[in-house]
């Protein structure tokens, strides 16, 4: 079955008569290392490319591994799995192609997968070890600006791929998003990185220069190079030049996508209506293609769904809404377009929504356990013995370092009271529960991280005297204070030591009093 699903691949020369299975590992990660500004669209770009490869590129879903926001360990594990799958296909006599796509942060030495990394040397070794006959890697590691943001925190030299060391005789192609020490960029306007946007557009048909309904790797590269250079030439971060490293022993072309596949429909953009058209997928809320139509007709293969075809004119938008069915060919001529205002731009609204969603804080949940003690030793000894407590904290962190937190702690256990004039300790059972809210700032994300701010805690305590025949007693208080934490944050995990200091108003014998109390807590957390 896998062979049947993958059979649609066409390699025009040496691979032309073989059964070919295509595999894909698609990796996207908005998070980077310390100092990297988080990206808005890297993971969305990866999803977009996963769609292109599976819908048009002949990669079955069974042969696709998608990793969004995952770590080094996940990538290593996935590459090992895909290596096994490739070996199985080759045992059946099939030839194999592996696509590796990465969108996220990087520097001159490594991909940044959140707070973990994979060096370029490790990546090339993983690709070599995959065993695939042909290995194609698209690496979109970019930086961002205002309307366009630079991907990656620092400008880095061009990725230093050495083909002779890296590739075996069968063949390998690597396409990167930028060259030299250029920064690569995301764009709010197109809702993604320039490179991936034009790569996906090209593979969907925009790059089909010869009109044969097949997009080869060469066509795709020419298209993505031209469009990326053109669209980034006026950006603040500077022109971005994609690069390629090509080492294939085959003599022909590698066809990456075929238009008109059974599961797709075709948008036909006639040459009689020239212009630059952006195609927005209304169902997935993303731009899927951008096509420049000159004299010749252009065809774009898309999965069935609702699409918005837009031409951005100086004063207004020209918009056509298309319903595309499988195997259908819809001609988008001038009669389908209507004028629209920029303020009503559905695509822009969706992109803004994506940006807002990307700006939402990340949640980290912590299990907390520790102890509580009071600043007045006499009051502590006579009324509120130190107790243990445990609970859960949710901490929402924004990209700019702000955080807010809510927490609930509870504890129960025996203690003793030292009452003046009594020669024995009074046994007491203490129950406590607190609900806290906090807000503050944290240091940039790194393996060692610290933070602190204000903390307000609702405090409930009950004293029970089961052996003394004395009625239960309760205290409720609202205690303002400060909280600070220091911890290790390897990957998604967080281990914090947290210290909270509060002023506790309290009532004893009907009289209002106040004192400080502190909580020292160990937190084990996971960041989602």
């Amino acid at each position, binding site marked *: 079955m896998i062979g049947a699903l993958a059979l649609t691949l066409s390699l025009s020369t040496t691979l032309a008569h073989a059964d070919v299975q295509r595999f894909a590992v698609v990796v996207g990660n908005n998070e980077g290392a310390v100092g990297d500004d988080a990206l808005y669209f890297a993971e969305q770009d990866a999803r977009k490319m996963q769609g292109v490869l599976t819908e048009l590129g002949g990669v079955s879903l069974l042969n696709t591994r998608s990793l969004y926001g995952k770590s080094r360990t996940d990538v290593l594990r996935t590459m090992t799995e895909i290596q096994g799958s490739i070996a199985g296909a080759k045992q059946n006599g099939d030839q194999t192609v592996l696509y590796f796509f990465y969108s996220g942060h990087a520097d001159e030495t490594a991909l940044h997968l959140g707070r973990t990394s994979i060096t370029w040397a490790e990546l090339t070794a993983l690709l070599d070890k995959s065993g695939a006959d042909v290995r194609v890697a698209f690496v979109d590691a970019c930086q961002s600006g205002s309307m366009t943001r630079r991907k990656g925190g620092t400008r880095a030299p061009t990725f230093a791929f050495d083909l002779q060391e890296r590739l075996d005789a069968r063949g390998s192609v690597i396409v990167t998003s930028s060259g030299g020490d250029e920064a690569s960029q995301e764009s709010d306007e197109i809702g993604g990185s320039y490179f991936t946007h034009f790569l996906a557009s090209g593979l969907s048909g925009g790059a089909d220069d010869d009109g044969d309904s097949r997009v080869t790797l060469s066509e795709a590269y020419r298209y993505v190079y031209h469009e990326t250079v053109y669209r980034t030439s006026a950006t603040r971060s500077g022109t971005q030049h994609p690069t390629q490293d090509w080492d294939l022993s085959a003599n022909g072309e590698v066809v990456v996508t075929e238009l008109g596949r059974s599961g797709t429909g075709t948008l036909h953009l006639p040459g009689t209506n020239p212009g630059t058209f952006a195609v927005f997928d209304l169902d997935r809320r993303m731009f899927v293609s951008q096509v420049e139509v000159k004299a010749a007709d252009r065809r774009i293969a898309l999965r069935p769904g609702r699409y918005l075809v837009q031409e951005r004119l100086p004063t207004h938008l020209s918009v056509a809404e298309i319903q595309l069915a499988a195997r259908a060919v819809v001609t988008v001529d001038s009669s389908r377009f209507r004028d629209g205002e920029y303020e009503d731009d559905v695509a822009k609204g969706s992109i803004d929504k994506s940006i807002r969603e990307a700006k939402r804080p990340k949640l980290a949940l912590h299990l907390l356990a520790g102890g509580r003690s009071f600043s007045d030793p006499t009051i502590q000894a006579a009324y509120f013995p130190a107790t243990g407590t445990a609970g859960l904290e949710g901490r929402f962190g924004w990209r700019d370092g702000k955080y807010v937190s809510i927490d609930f702690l509870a504890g129960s256990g025996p203690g003793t009271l030292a009452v*003046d*004039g*009594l*020669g024995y300790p009074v046994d007491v059972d203490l129950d406590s529960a607190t609900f806290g809210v906090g807000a503050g700032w944290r240091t940039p994300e790194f393996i060692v991280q610290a933070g602190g701010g204000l903390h307000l805690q609702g405090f409930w305590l009950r004293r029970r005297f089961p052996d003394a025949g004395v009625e239960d007693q309760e205290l409720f*208080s*609202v205690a303002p204070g400060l909280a600070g934490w220091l911890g290790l944050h390897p990957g998604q995990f967080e281990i914090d030591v947290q210290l909270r200091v509060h*002023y506790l*108003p309290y009532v004893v014998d009907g009289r209002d009093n106040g004192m400080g109390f502190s909580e020292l807590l160990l937190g084990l957390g996971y960041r989602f």
Partner: protein
Amino acid sequence: MILLFIFACGTVTNGPFDDDANFLAALPDEARQTVGFGDDTTDAAARGLGDRADLVELSVVIAAQVNGFVLGTLGLVDRVRELPPTERGDNTRRWGPYEGDCGVSASLLMSREFGVYQWSVLGHPTEGDDGTVLYGTHFSGETVVGGDGSFVWDHGRWASWCGLDESGVVTVDYDNRDGVDLLVLVEHLSLDGAEPTDWTYAYTRTDTLGDFQYRTVSDLAEDGSDELATVTVRDRWIPGTGGRSDAQVTGGGFGDTLWQWSQCWGATGRLTFQTDSLALTETVGNEADCVFEAAEVDRL
């Protein structure tokens, strides 16, 4: 703004336990109902040398006897200080019953009204009716413990429960309002079948003055006579400075003759002056150097 969030309410109180402490403060204790003579009149080196004044030596022994007897009667009272009450009421407390000597369990019952605490130790013998062996009354002063009161030990009843041939009643009046003031009356005390005797002790102590007086019988003449002398001794001292002991002895080898014997001593109890009315002892020192120049034996 943040002050708006400061808020507290609740029912936390240590009132019941503070009140336990009040009840316990109304009971006699070792620090206030024992004689502190000897602690501040001698030092260890002097004791070892054996050169303390004879009357100081005698009073130290007598004080130890008195303390032993009083503390013996207060055994259960001391025990409840380490235990929470078994039962609490607004103005009552009960401890026990606890197992005691001779298989007799005992309870301590206390009640309070208008600052007056009444208490009793109720014995529960294995055979026979329950009975009170120790009881007292305490009147609160400015504080509960700074009051006065009395307690009575019925030694005969306790001895009967234990099958002992002993009798006697011990009454202790105390006043804690200004230092410590004790009057201990031992009436018809018979131990191990001996002839009943009556003893009296008076003890006063403040920060600046100590006064201990007692009357007992002793073979003071050491002549082997069956008739013991009646000895009345009064020790007065200024803590850290020195003191004076005056004794009057009649009976025994002295017949009807009143023998008056005085000794003065320094801060460590060493003899500094001595004289007696019958010149039985060597006269030592100058009476003008004594802390108290005049003899007094008239408190009891």
